[in-house]
């Protein structure tokens, strides 16, 4: 079973990489963008085949290591 974790800076926490990329897009005349946020994606292969159990495990991994919840939010997709 595969779990995909997206980690990104919380709303309200300034994302300098997103901001720089937004400026770059604007300078290329892509002016239809109102905001850019950059995060990271972590793809995990899980031993477990139980979705609920897998989700629980990955949530714990996010809290302990994969995200720093002082500044980051995360979401988990399992399939």
């Amino acid at each position: 079973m595969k779990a995909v974790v997206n980690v990104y800076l919380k709303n309200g926490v300034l994302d300098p990489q997103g901001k720089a990329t937004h400026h770059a897009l604007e300078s290329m005349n892509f002016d239809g963008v109102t905001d850019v946020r950059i995060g990271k994606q972590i793809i995990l292969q899980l031993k477990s085949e139980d979705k609920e159990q897998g989700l629980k495990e990955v949530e714990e991994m996010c809290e302990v290591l994969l995200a720093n919840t002082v500044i980051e939010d995360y979401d988990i997709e399992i399939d």
Partner: protein
Amino acid sequence: MKVAVLRFPGTNCEFDTQYAFEKLGYTTVLVWHKEEILPKDTDLVVIPGGFSYGDYLRSGSIAQFSPVMKAVVNYANRGGKVLGICNGFQILTEIGLLPGALKRNNNLHFISKLQKIQIVNNNNFFLSKCHKNEILNIPIAHADGNYYIDDQGLKELEKNDQILLRYCDEAGGRVVVNGSVTSIAGICNKEKNVFGLMPHPERALELLLGSNDGIKMLQGFEQ
């Protein structure tokens, strides 16, 4: 005084740190991160700068799970003094011994230069040899030094005199160096036994190299 200097894969300031404390007349011991106990009679633990685990995932995020860090947390919780410099500061926030987090610099650059730093509070061991509002010249060298804490946390820091250092100009005015909340360069915990800062006092020991202001910072731990 015995200073334990920790060493992780990717640490690169351990010898400078050792040199600095030995120059001040202290005994130093390098401690590999796989150790589960700290040397007997350790008076100060220093987590030096560098790039532990290549800064993978987030700076300091993986080092917090090294065996030696369990011993450091126990040591700190018993009142032992811990100093984290640069990557050491990042590790201390990741493990939760210090509040807040260090983000990528707001200009996305690795910043390496001599920087003016103002002493905000000196009612703690670390800065006891410095005067309040004194301006020191200390090198900085980091990509992730942009200190973040929420408003509530900032109020707590201010209330408890936990803000130690701020980036400033020649006149002591706050300057934006890396985007840190209120230009914070260093903090301590509420109990004032765990200290973290982005500047490198161990690199400011000789006037010939630009500044010797680091000496009076590191001397603060002398009892």
